């Protein structure tokens, strides 16, 4: 929906990183008992930028999200908002954020419009403005027609959209989204991302999104890859993909360990196993595919494919494990 529309009153265009980040997190630490959920994590998001925190379950993404949104205190580290020290416990800090949870935090017994009115009250949006802003947010998220219905009747995608609409009412500077793709069908998710992209361009809104899905991470301007509570890589999707040489050849079949061993011995190629598949990095994947096929008896392999590396490949290369682990 956003592409054709006229651009906005505010600064438009892509967002070149400004010198002062909207939010900078330095050396965030948080333990749960003996386990360090966050073990010295640092990152920054600039105005108008979408930053992805990518990692498998347990990597520390949700802990970082809860810490930034003020739900749990940090054991250590510092947060700056527009260059000034900030504490998530302060209401002034939270007033500038819009937080969208993984699990719906709307009231299913209320209508879409009532949920937004409640959100406006929680953020102190003056009554005189609230009605108009609610109409605008409903229109932006394409929910106007169903606004009078109970949100219990909404689909997963609509619920996510009403949540996003709710956190836009107070004009936040930074959105935090925890796994926005969970429970939303791909088409609905694509539209949500289009809408978020427009907001980021038009309002210089910064967005931090946690995800374990490589496709979702591709939509981010920059990505911080988390593993076991630490940052293991950061960069644009292209920079991260460049860490994997050339193409990735994926071989599927029974006994992936044996397949990897045969490929290693006969072709001298390093093969790793992630999520039950054998993956081989190669500068020219299409040349490797027939050579691998010749090594095995017919039927031994289920499939061989070559593709450009995905962020899942990058993660697997960096950690030796899959994102779904």
């Amino acid at each position, binding site marked *: 929906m956003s592409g054709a529309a006229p651009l906005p009153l505010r600064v438009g265009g892509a967002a070149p990183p400004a010198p002062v980040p909207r939010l900078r997190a330095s050396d965030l630490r948080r333990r749960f008992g003996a386990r360090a959920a966050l073990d010295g994590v640092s990152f920054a998001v600039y105005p108008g930028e979408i930053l992805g925190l990518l990692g498998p379950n347990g990597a520390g993404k949700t802990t970082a999200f809860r810490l930034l949104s003020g739900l749990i205190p940090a054991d250590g580290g510092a947060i700056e908002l527009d260059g000034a020290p900030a504490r998530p416990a302060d209401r002034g800090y939270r007033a500038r954020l819009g937080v969208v*949870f993984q699990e719906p935090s709307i009231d299913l017994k209320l209508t879409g419009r009532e949920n937004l009115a409640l959100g406006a*009250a929680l953020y102190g949006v003056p009554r*005189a403005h609230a009605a108009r802003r609610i109409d605008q947010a409903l229109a932006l998220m394409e929910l106007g027609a169903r606004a009078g219905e109970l949100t219990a009747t909404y689909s997963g995608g609509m619920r996510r959209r009403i949540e996003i609409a709710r956190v836009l009412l107070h004009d936040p500077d930074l959105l935090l989204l925890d796994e926005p793709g969970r429970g939303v069908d791909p088409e609905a998710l694509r539209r949500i991302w289009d809408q978020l992209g427009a907001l980021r361009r*038009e309002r210089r809104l910064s967005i931090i999104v946690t995800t374990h899905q490589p496709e979702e991470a591709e939509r981010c301007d920059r990505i911080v890859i988390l593993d076991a509570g630490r940052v293991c890589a950061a960069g644009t999707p292209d920079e991260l993909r460049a860490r994997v040489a050339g193409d990735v050849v994926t071989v599927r079949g029974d006994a992936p360990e044996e397949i990897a061993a045969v490929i290693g011995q006969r072709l001298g190629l390093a093969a790793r196993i992630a999520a039950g598949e054998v993956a081989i990095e190669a500068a020219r994947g299409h040349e490797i595919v027939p050579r691998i096929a010749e090594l095995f008896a017919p039927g031994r392999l289920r499939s061989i494919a070559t593709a450009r590396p995905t962020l899942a490949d990058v993660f697997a290369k960096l950690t030796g494990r899959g994102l779904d682990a």
Partner: protein
Amino acid sequence: MSAGIQADSGAGDGAEGGTSAVPLELRARATASGVIAALVGRDLRRFFRQRSRIAGSLAQPLILWAVLGAGLGDSFRAAGAGGVSYLQYFFPGTIVLTVLFTAIFSTISVIEDRHHGFLQAVLVAPVSRTSLVLGKTLGGVAIALLQATALVALAPLAGFSLGGMGYATLAGALLLSAVGFTALGFAVAWWIDSTQGYHAVMSVALIPLWMLSGAMFPASGAHRAVEVLMRANPMTYAMSAVRRGLYGAQLPAGLVPEWSSPALELGVCALFAVAATCVAAMLCRRRA
């Protein structure tokens, strides 16, 4: 339309349109009263939308009253108050039980809601934890008072006269005990953080306290040890005050403890309400 909701907001409130240029203090304008009113409004809306909940919450105590009252009617006579039927004796206890059940019902949702539901959105909003406690408590109180009012309107069924009631005492006792029970429910929900644990504390601890409040039998006829327990039980004072309110000037002798007085009863209720609210606010502020 994709011009965004920002597009025309600059025309209105000066603080509205800005981003980082606006001082932080100006943006956290959610007033405590606004937040509390919004949370109470939410609870009332939810309540009126659930017809079955309204019916159930009224039918349950009435059935209990009718069954227990009629069943025990012949075997029970309040000591020193021979003229009062058990149906009548038990009615004030039914009202207090309704307030107690409503408080339990409206705060148990806090446990789930806090980690997987609507309360998450309140916790990340620029809202003080005290406003959250007060909003949630007063929401439960509003529902409890609606139900108590409905029961009071039915009191003539038990032989009470609507014209002769001491409404000030009755309203004070109901309001204060609703605040006390609901805030206590919130505190327990926040502290225990598990539905089973909550049930254990609220039902297993509070129902005996209700039984020992004079709801089912008067202190005057009880065993000495039980009477001591009743004297130490704050719910006894709420119970007596409600009973006094329902009878007004026509309070038969022996129905409320002779060592008690309306001022003492309302004082204990007020103390309990304030203490429970403070504990709830303290727990909510301290624990994530």
